[in-house]
């Protein structure tokens, strides 16, 4: 065995290399296998299972979130279209009522005009009738006056 004398030690010394080396190497290799089956494998299984679980959950949550966003956008467009539809209906109804109002107004105006005209004509006819009657009475009266004057004489 390779051995240096160091620090005046009678045998061995700091750099005393002997069968400790290969045995220690074997021990470390054995320890690697023991730790692998006792520590690295079981802990790795648990940790990786959990990591998979967490990442799956995250993916699922992301999917759900995107679905929610899609639905939200969908709803928003629906809401938008409903709003424009409502606006359209409202404006249509306004137009309609405006038209109806105008029609009714025109109709009422016409009717009023007609009845006014009728009334005027009636007034006129009555006036003329009254005038005729008046003039007839005046004629009668004048004839009566004339007759009486003639008789007295």
């Amino acid at each position, binding site marked *: 065995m390779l051995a240096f004398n160091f620090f005046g030690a009678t045998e061995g010394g700091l750099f005393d290399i002997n069968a400790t080396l290969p045995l220690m190497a074997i021990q470390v290799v054995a*320890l690697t296998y023991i*730790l692998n089956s006792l520590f690295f494998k079981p802990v790795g299984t648990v*940790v990786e299972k959990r990591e998979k679980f967490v990442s799956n959950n995250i993916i699922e949550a992301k999917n759900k979130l995107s679905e929610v966003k899609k639905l939200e956008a969908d709803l928003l467009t629906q809401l938008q279209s409903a709003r424009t539809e409502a606006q359209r209906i409202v404006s249509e109804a306004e137009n309609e009522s405006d038209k109806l109002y105008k029609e009714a107004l025109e109709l009422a105006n016409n009717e009023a005009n007609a009845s006014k005209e009728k009334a005027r004509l009636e007034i006129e006819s009555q006036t003329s009738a009254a005038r005729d009657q008046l003039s007839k009475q005046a004629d009668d009266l004048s004839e009566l006056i004339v007759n009486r004057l003639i008789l007295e004489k």
Partner: protein
Amino acid sequence: MFFNSLLTNFAALEVGQHLYWQIGNIRLHGQVFLTSWILLGALLVFISLGTKKMENDPKGLQNLLEFLWDYIRDLARTQIGEKVYRDWMPFIGTLFLFVFVSNWGGALIPWRLIKLPSGELGAPTADINTTIALALLVSLSYFYAGLSNKGWRYFEYYVHPTPIMLPFKILEDFTKPLSLSFRLFGNILADELVVGVLVFLVPLILPIPVMFLGLFTSAIQALIFATLAAYYIGEAVEEHH
């Protein structure tokens, strides 16, 4: 005089002394195995307690272990890359945990209270055998990773930008394990020595900040070792066009 007494005190630190176990013809550093068994036993108990009842809603220890697992995965993934990091995560994680537990165990547990016939207990990573073993495992791993992922095309890496790089790349295969092992060994041993010397000179209060610094370096060294190992493997499996 003073210097001499300092030297004997140094000697009392027992640098480079080992508790030898003789098995047949081979000799082992017993203290390294003793501390590593105690620390790894504690680590395994801790981990089996934490993974005994795994739930989808982590509680208590499971939380800590999951944090650790996540940390190691991030380390492996950033250095090795998305494609093959899974194959190497247990190895990188084991390196990190082994170095970290050894370093902190060596620094936190008052091993010196346990008297051994020779040598003293301490961080297993303060022994050059341990760090060289780890570094050689890293070397083997990145060769294996490169060859198993790219086959013979792995050796394109040696002439990658230009063939001029060939000697440097070959040299790197030697400097990588060398720097890995000596960095870890030097840092942990130096930390133990500094704390030991300070405790000898001023037994009260003064060593405490140095001990905290030691804990900091210990953790950093574990991170550096694991990161570099992962980086080397990542370099070997990387596809360059």
